């Protein structure tokens, strides 16, 4: 009855790992495709407000960001604790917004310039005074499509 002879010599059977690279590659490609590299490093603290009626922002290349919030704790010694505007990588004032918009616009395709959207990433504790100033500047720069960046609010 050799059929039922136990294979005592062999330990745990080895798992075939030949397809492991394929699986890893698949994951790798997934992440490579979905990755969007962070272009700017935030210098302000932003705690976005929440909302329920939000829409997704399409086409990242047409979106410019304006950040407003308190400077990070490590920068507060230099810049204070009042909310500041950040454009690209530097702190700015409302007077710089128009130049910022026109330089962003130049980088875009001419046909797409009309669809340009400005996303306002603003901390929810910021006062409206600064936001209104920004909105006025955007109107002067005729960048009229804006988006109040906010997170999804989940209601019970």
């Amino acid at each position, binding site marked *: 009855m050799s059929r039922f002879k136990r294979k005592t010599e062999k330990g745990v059977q080895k798992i075939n*790992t030949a397809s*492991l*690279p394929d699986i*890893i*590659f698949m*994951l*790798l490609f997934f*992440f*490579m495709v*979905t*990755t*969007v*590299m*962070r272009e700017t490093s935030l210098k302000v603290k932003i705690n976005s*407000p929440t*909302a*329920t*009626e*939000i*829409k*997704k*922002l399409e086409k*990242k290349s047409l*979106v410019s960001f304006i950040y407003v919030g308190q400077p990070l704790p490590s920068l507060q010694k230099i810049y204070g604790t009042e909310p500041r505007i950040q454009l690209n990588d530097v702190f700015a004032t409302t007077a710089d917004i128009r130049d910022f918009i026109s330089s962003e616009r130049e980088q875009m395709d001419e046909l797409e310039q009309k669809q340009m*959207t400005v*996303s*306002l990433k*603003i*901390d*929810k*504790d*910021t*006062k*409206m*005074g600064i*936001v*209104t100033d920004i*909105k*006025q500047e*955007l*109107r*002067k720069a*005729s960048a*009229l*499509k*804006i*988006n*109040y*960046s*906010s*997170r*999804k609010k989940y209601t019970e």
Partner: protein
Amino acid sequence: MARRELSEINAGSMADIAFLLLIFFLVATTMDIDTGLSRLLPPMPEEDQQDDQSEIRERNVFVVLINKDDQLFVEKEVVDISELKELTKEFIMNPQNKSNLSEKRVDYVDFFGEVDISKGVISLQNDIGTSYGKYIEVQNELAAAVNELRNELTMQKFGRKFEDLDPLKPSESDIIEAVKKVIPMAISEAEPKKIGGN
């Protein structure tokens, strides 16, 4: 010269290399999709242009004001934010044709025929000291009111929710445009003006 056998490349370390790259992309990835409330700002008026706001009659303007202490006033009365949506819906639709709520005009719109369209405009005003969080909360309630009205309309007419319509399908994008005409999202973010007393 002795012919050597073509030796196979050892692919055993391939997984390790791929792992390394994978971990790099995992760390570098930001998955957050940007979301938010989209709005269209009014264009800057020309210098010599006259103010044409006087054409809008007072009953057609729904004044929502947030003061510097984040208190909400609707038509000069203190209101809790939970009531804002219903008030807005009532103002736009004006089901009982009250004389202090918005007027209507009759117009022809595809799919709907002759319909009443509200002339109402929501005017959202704020103070310099209003917090941004509160402002967005109010904006959200106003948008929710309009979206709910649109949902009710499409539910009645087509048995589907407005937000489920796909703008990429030509047949449905026409419906979306028509619904937007019947119930316009008329939210005006007021020009900044100095309100005394702070």
